[in-house]
């Protein structure tokens, strides 16, 4: 069974604050839920399916009793998995209005990476073969960057071009944490955190979250906003396997195939790419593994300004995790910006009449275990 065109995103809300010590993760999700429902023209009582990592805690907080509940944990890519699962549940007749939420106090809660001591011993598998060696989150991605440089001659300047394009987009987003333009030299001169990744190759840490509503295509027609249809979905995980995995091949290389096949569209049809950008190397490998360019050609591609609004493949037009926000799991924001662009609501950085957006979420860590969720969204079926 295909989910092509069966369901649509009909309401979104991106939590505006990037630092909100008064908020809890549950309050961010519940407030965002109300505002996404407002955006759609729906009521809380219309919701019969809940997709959130807070599961029954959020159901309790919002006093809801959904018929379908899903807490799939695929890290930052979870929200593309949630969208795929919701479309399938709607297609199967299990529910009609799905609420997807995310809330994180990653910044105000002081939950920055690699600060807390690990107490006691770590589990034998798989942590026992990694944690004794000090692999930071950055380090896990830096291993991929180094290997990419070795195999393909990719340069730090090329990776930096991704940060530069993303910052250009962020300069148009009033909620973005960083909005001042930067140059390739700024990236190269920023502090080396995990060689070859500099500070400005890395996403920021913020608070935030949001919510979106998915319903059936039939019901979507009568709601407040123009529906954004789900045309294609793909899901995958990747991991070191038996100890022989090619580091520059990521889960996107698998998940995109089903998404394109289901959607019945090709790469040249895509007007907007929303690619998870925990680090610049994440964007580079995502563009290659999704098949927009051949492996090894990503560096030369991004260097030409291809990711700018007027480039060959406008990417992360909200300013991404590199400049706008990254509360820990950024996949949900890829859906928000896709919907804003396809509705024509992206004031200050609107693409001209876009028809198709591809959102690809990566969760976990590229060089070890990670997820890849691909969603193709469209203004029409």
């Amino acid at each position, binding site marked *: 069974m295909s989910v092509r065109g069966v369901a649509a995103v009909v309401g979104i809300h991106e939590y505006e604050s990037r630092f909100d010590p008064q908020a809890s993760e549950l309050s961010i999700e519940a407030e965002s839920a109300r505002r996404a429902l407002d955006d759609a023209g729906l009521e809380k009582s219309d919701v019969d399916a809940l997709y959130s990592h807070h599961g029954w805690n959020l159901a309790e907080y919002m006093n809801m009793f959904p018929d379908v509940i899903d807490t799939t944990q695929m890290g930052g890519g979870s929200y593309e998995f949630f969208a795929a699962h919701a479309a399938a549940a709607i297609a199967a007749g299990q529910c009609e209005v799905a609420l997807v939420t995310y809330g994180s106090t990653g910044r105000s809660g002081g939950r920055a990476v690699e600060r807390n001591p690990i107490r006691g011993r770590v589990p034998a598998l798989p942590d026992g073969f990694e944690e004794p060696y000090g692999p*930071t989150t950055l*380090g896990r991605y830096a291993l991929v960057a180094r290997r990419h440089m070795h195999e393909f001659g990719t340069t730090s300047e090329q990776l930096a071009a991704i940060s530069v394009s993303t910052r250009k987009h962020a300069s148009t987003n009033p909620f973005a944490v960083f909005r001042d333009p930067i140059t390739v030299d700024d990236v190269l001169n920023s502090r080396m955190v995990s060689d070859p990744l500099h500070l400005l190759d890395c996403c920021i840490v913020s608070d935030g979250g949001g919510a979106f509503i998915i319903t059936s295509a039939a019901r979507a027609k009568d709601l407040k906003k123009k529906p954004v249809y789900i045309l294609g979905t793909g899901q995958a995980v990747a991991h070191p396997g038996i*100890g022989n995995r090619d580091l520059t091949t990521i889960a996107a290389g698998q998940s995109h195939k089903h998404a394109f096949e289901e959607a019945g569209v090709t790469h040249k049809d895509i007007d907007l790419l929303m690619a998870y950008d925990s680090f610049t190397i994440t964007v580079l490998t995502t563009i290659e593994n999704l098949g927009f360019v051949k492996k090894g050609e990503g560096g030369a591609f991004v260097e030409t300004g291809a990711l700018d609004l007027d480039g060959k493949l406008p990417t992360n037009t909200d300013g991404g995790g590199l400049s706008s926000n990254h509360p820990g799991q950024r996949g949900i924001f890829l859906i928000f910006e896709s919907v804003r662009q396809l509705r024509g609501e992206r004031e200050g950085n609107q693409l001209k009449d876009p028809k198709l957006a591809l959102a690809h979420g990566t969760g976990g860590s590229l060089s070890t275990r990670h997820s890849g969720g691909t969603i193709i969204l469209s203004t029409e079926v």
Partner: protein
Amino acid sequence: MATEQQPYRKPLPELHPEIAPYYTGGLRAELMIKFCPNCNISFHYPRTVCPECLKSDTVWRRASGKGTVYSYTITYQNLSPGFREEVPYVLALVDLAEGVRVMTNIIDCDPKDVSVGMPVEVTWERAEELAIPKFRPQKS
């Protein structure tokens, strides 16, 4: 064998029987890797059940301890105890002669001298009752 100052502050694995020889082999200067006689393959991390045929008659084999650097990063920032005193340190993936890749640290050299493809050999860092396999440049 390098000896660490006590107490050891970096994370250590639970010494579950499924993985123990990897972290105790070094006490006898042996790097132990898992092998499936049905599939005729080595694999890592070690499992009781072969990840290919899912049979449980896998065995430990002593590896040569020689390999090459597949990728690495020089870590300049890690605030966790044990590591924050050691930055900059080299996190690496090493391809062993037996055909499997292990996460490790490259030690006993200047981090800036590490390169992809560099020949390395195993050494061990003692930590409580364990010996943590690490790698250093091969002596020519």
